[in-house]
Structures are given as structure tokens and as C-alpha cells.
């Protein structure tokens, strides 16, 4: 197979794997970390689809600011695993 096909398959498998890990995990902090990694995989997908503006915007907003406002909301809990 060509190199581009291998890259596309790899990025697609990573996207689905990280999304499943974020939804299934029992602790809250683990889910937030997996969401941040998922947005980095989405930046790789945007770069493969030839969209540089969208990739830069998602990199700055999705992995820096969204992760911060999630973590700042669960800081006061004694155990971060108060999830269901």
C-alpha cells in the first residue's frame, strides 16, 4: 500500500480508539486526558485533509483551553474519581 493510505488507516484507528477510551473510563480525570489526546489526533486528520487554517485553530483551542476549563471545574473534589 502507499504511504498515504497507511497514514489514513492509522489516524482513523487512533480516532476511534481514543474516543472509546474517553467514554468507557471510570475516573473523570482519565476521561479528560483522553479527550485532549483525541483532539491532537483530530489535528493530524485535518492536516491529512489539506486544511491548514482549521488544523492551527483546533490545535490551539482544543488541547490548551478546553482541557484547562475542564480541569478547573473538578479541582475541588476530594477524589477525582467521583464518576459513574
Amino acid at each position: 500500500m502507499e504511504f498515504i493510505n497507511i497514514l489514513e488507516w492509522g489516524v482513523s484507528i487512533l480516532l476511534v480508539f481514543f474516543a472509546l477510551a474517553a467514554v468507557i473510563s471510570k475516573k473523570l480525570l482519565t476521561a479528560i486526558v483522553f479527550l485532549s489526546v483525541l483532539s491532537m489526533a483530530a489535528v493530524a486528520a485535518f492536516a491529512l485533509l489539506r486544511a491548514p487554517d482549521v488544523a492551527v485553530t483546533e490545535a490551539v483551542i482544543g488541547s490548551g483551553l478546553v482541557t484547562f476549563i475542564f480541569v478547573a471545574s473538578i479541582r475541588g473534589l476530594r477524589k477525582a474519581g467521583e464518576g459513574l
Partner: protein
Amino acid sequence: MRKVFAAGLVILFGVVLLLGLSKTMDIAGYEDGLISGKPAEAYINKNVTEESGEIIYGETKDAETGSANMVTSVIANYRSFDTLGEVTVLFLAAVGVSMLIGGSGKEKKRKKSGFILRTAAGIIFPVMLITGIYIFTHGHLTPGGGFPGGSMIASSFLLLYMADEKFSLKLSGFKFAEGIAGSLYVLAGAAGLFIGGYFLMNFLPTGTVGTLFSAGIIPIIYVIIGLKVGSEITGIISDMLKEEVSV
């Protein structure tokens, strides 16, 4: 029990969605169609209102928008009214956050940070600030624009919050700058109405495609948007770190 119901419902919806979509488009591949015939062809060739020939980087003078980045010319010139609506929605979200939390709350206590973070923040903060300003002033030449540039400025202030436990911003200056920048966008549109005939018209001369002083009013609009988004998100970050006054 709840998870079994959720899985069943999602599988049912998923089967309907995938079967319906596979009849109109090719799900596992991409279409080989060309751009011609779609509405985006007029945006690429820059002949929406008047006829023009081929656009060449560095040579064409006085084209319709004159910006080398096509996504920028769509956002800030052809569809500028939608960008005004988006700036309004972001403003509403910031006002909602500030009304529900802000006011007279004290800030939560932060721990003293380590040695690496304190030293590195002094070096990285000016570099991040200048990179953010570079991204939104060159929005018509390189990928990026006003929105990631303003967010990078807000992230640099977040880095200062993390590194120093006694740092706190005076928010009144930021909220004042945000209001001024928002009104300047509407005033630029009204100036286009008086000079040319329709709201948000591009009334400055567009020079050669590819140089820094080109594309008319587009760099000015992106500087306004970059300052507005930067001060807005800094306000949201500073409000999220406050202590909660009991309801």
C-alpha cells in the same frame, strides 16, 4: 441496565444513519469530483461580482479581494456578516460566564510551582505573545487568522497564572478593550455603508496579491477580531479560577 438501553438505541440509530448515507455518497472514500460547478469556484477565481482573469501570486494588481489566503477572503470579505454573528455569540458566552461566577469572588489558593516551570515561563511567555500577534497580523498571507492568534495570547496569560501563585490580573482593562474592539467592527461596517453603498464593503485599495499591505480592509478586521477574542478568553479563564460564593 442503563448502558444496555443506551447501546441498543445507538446501534439502531447508527444502522439507519449509515444505510441512508451510503445511498447518496461514498462512505469509505472520497469523491473524484472537481470544483467546477460548485459555489466555491467563484471564491477561488475571485470573480463574484465582476469578471477577472487568472490570479497569479505576486503579479496581479487590484483583484477583487486581493488576499492570497482563500479561506481568509471567504471569512472576512465575502461572508463577513456571518463572522459578525459569530463574534456576537462568543460575546454572549463570555457575558454569561461573567454574570454567573464573577463579581466579588476571591481566587482559589494555588500551590507554589516547581523550579522548571518558573524559569521556563519567563522565557516562553514573550515568545508566545509575539507569535500570537504575528499570526493575526499576517492572516491574509499565511494560514491562521484572528481566532487562533487571539487564543494564543490568552494561552500565554494562562501560562503566567500557572507559573506564579501570586499573579492576578485586573480585569476591568480587559473588559473595556473587548467592548471597544467589538464596537470598532460594527463601525468599520458602517463606514463601508457610507462610502460605498453596502454594509461591510471593502473600501480600501487592494494592492498586489501576496504583499503585506494588500487586501484592503481584511488585515484591519483581523487585528480587531484578534484583540477581541484574546481579551474575551482571558476574561473567561480568570473567572473560572475564582472561588465560589455560596448560593
